[in-house]
């Protein structure tokens, strides 16, 4: 990693670590928790949708899995409040293992067919969440025990847990960029048959990326369920969660480290603001779509890659003139 990159990362995390100590505003903390949630989600989605070029629309199924898993285990007691956080790696590992056969089958298809297969997984998961009453509580939902955290700083543990997952997702993303697995995924995205031809173990690499991506997504779902205190199927296995991850990644820039971060930091506050201004009638989704469409028309590859392309072109023109 370059010195500039280290500096950028250090500044980013230092400011996020200090943020909760600088404000006591509940709504601001709440907004940041959701922003970090989507940073972690879109960075995780980017591992498979960005680097490998497999646009999964089924990630919310695993988000819901993490949410229900946490809710079921901690429905009666959360002890001193910390066990659900400590339990998160189990949630991630179980979701990742569960995803291996799904990924193996789904990734035999490509592009739009893969998107359709994965969205089918999402609707199957949603249907199960609604109908497996004994496990999920059906439409009545499933409650999680309330932690004994101080009410004035109630959001802080959730904030830091989300931040830890942001670090994990961005760390994975950075590792992908610098390792052979990242190179393999880029090759797969560029031309899967050629990648196979030069010795890339295509199926293995894709399934590993998918498992890691959904494992992280499930962990985020676990924290979300704990923070919300109640898991309803229409919110836990919600296509809008997947759409959010996809839009944020596309907006900031696919297959980049900072693209999903930027996308989340633009869209989540915008969504919260619009939702506040326009009420709970979901009209905010129209404005949300409008922002996205305009940005995609002006910056089709996402904000960061378009800016970096323009800077590179400018530099080239300058060199040519010199």
């Amino acid at each position, binding site marked *: 990693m370059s010195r500039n990159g280290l500096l950028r990362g250090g500044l980013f995390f230092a400011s996020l670590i200090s943020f909760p100590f600088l404000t006591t505003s509940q709504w601001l903390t709440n907004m940041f928790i959701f922003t970090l949630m989507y940073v972690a989600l879109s960075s995780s989605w980017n591992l498979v949708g960005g680097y490998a070029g497999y646009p999964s629309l089924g990630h919310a199924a695993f988000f819901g899995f993490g949410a229900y898993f946490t809710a079921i285990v901690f429905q009666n007691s959360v002890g001193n409040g910390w066990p659900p956080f400590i339990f998160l790696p189990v949630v991630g590992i179980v979701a990742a293992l569960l995803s291996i056969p799904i990924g193996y089958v789904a990734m035999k298809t490509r592009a739009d067919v893969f998107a359709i297969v994965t969205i089918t997984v999402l609707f199957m998961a949603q249907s199960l969440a609604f109908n497996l009453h004994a496990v999920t509580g059906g439409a009545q939902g499933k409650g999680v025990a309330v932690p004994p955290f101080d009410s004035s700083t109630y959001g802080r543990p959730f904030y830091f847990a989300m931040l830890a997952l942001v670090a994990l997702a961005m760390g994975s993303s950075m590792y992908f960029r610098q390792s*052979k697995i990242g*190179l*393999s995924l*880029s*090759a797969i*995205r*560029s*031309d899967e048959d*050629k*990648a196979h*031809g*030069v*010795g*890339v173990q295509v199926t293995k690499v894709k399934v590993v990326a998918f498992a890691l991506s959904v494992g992280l997504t499930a962990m985020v779902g676990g924290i979300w369920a704990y923070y919300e205190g109640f898991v309803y199927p229409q919110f836990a296995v919600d296509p809008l969660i997947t759409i959010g991850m996809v839009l944020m990644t596309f907006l900031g820039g696919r297959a980049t480290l900072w693209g999903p971060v930027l996308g989340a930091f633009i869209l989540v506050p915008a969504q919260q603001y619009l939702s506040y201004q326009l009420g709970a009638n979901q009209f905010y989704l129209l404005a949300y779509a409008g922002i996205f469409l305009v940005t995609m028309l002006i910056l089709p590859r996402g904000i960061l890659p378009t800016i970096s392309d323009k800077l590179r072109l400018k530099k080239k023109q300058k060199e040519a003139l010199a």
Partner: protein
Amino acid sequence: MTSNTPLLSLTEVTAGYGAGLVLKGVNLTVERGQIVCVIGPNGSGKSTVLKTVSGLLGVKSGSVRFNGEEISELTSRRRLDLGIVHVPQDRSLFPGMSVHENMMMGAFILTDHKLIAERMERAAELFPIVKVRANALAGSLSGGEQKQVEVARSLMLDPALILLDEPSIGLDPKSRKLVFESVKALAEDGRTILLVEQNARSGLAVSSMGAVLEAGKVALTGRGSDLLDDPEVARLYLGVKAK
């Protein structure tokens, strides 16, 4: 194996697709450090010769020996391990990846980072484009530049034999010049190359030996310069009118 053993020899090789035969008893020898150019009309089996050597196509009969060892039954991956690298006719770079990443893909089966860095450096010495355009997307390069990177990438495995399949096909004159300069650079580096080329004049000009393939058989062999002077070859493949 003795030092006199040719690096590659094909003896009475027959091969084809389905029931039909494209190669009908090809005999060809490539010595170490030579550039051998195979010319011939369309459909004579030039590319098929390369495919039988790299293992992309199995032989039906005959023998393919590399360093004295029979390789006709080996998989293409095993032949790659022996040092036979095939640069196909179609564009084989990853267009969405940078030049540097494409070079790294050429060394994908290697694990020694130091060795990879050394070979990258060596390839960049021969083909400066590898360094100059390292961050450019391969898809944004011209056809000739892409071919140069493909050839440079083949060096990442330090091949004993490079199979070049019509490297100048579909390129404009300027790009073609770049490609043949690349072949010359490889020759000066002491590489052994089996080159298949539609552009007979340029192909033979950079080659030490040439072979004319007709209807699946080698009809004529000789030094590249001798074939260029051969009136029959000139009439058939170089576009020179018979006197």
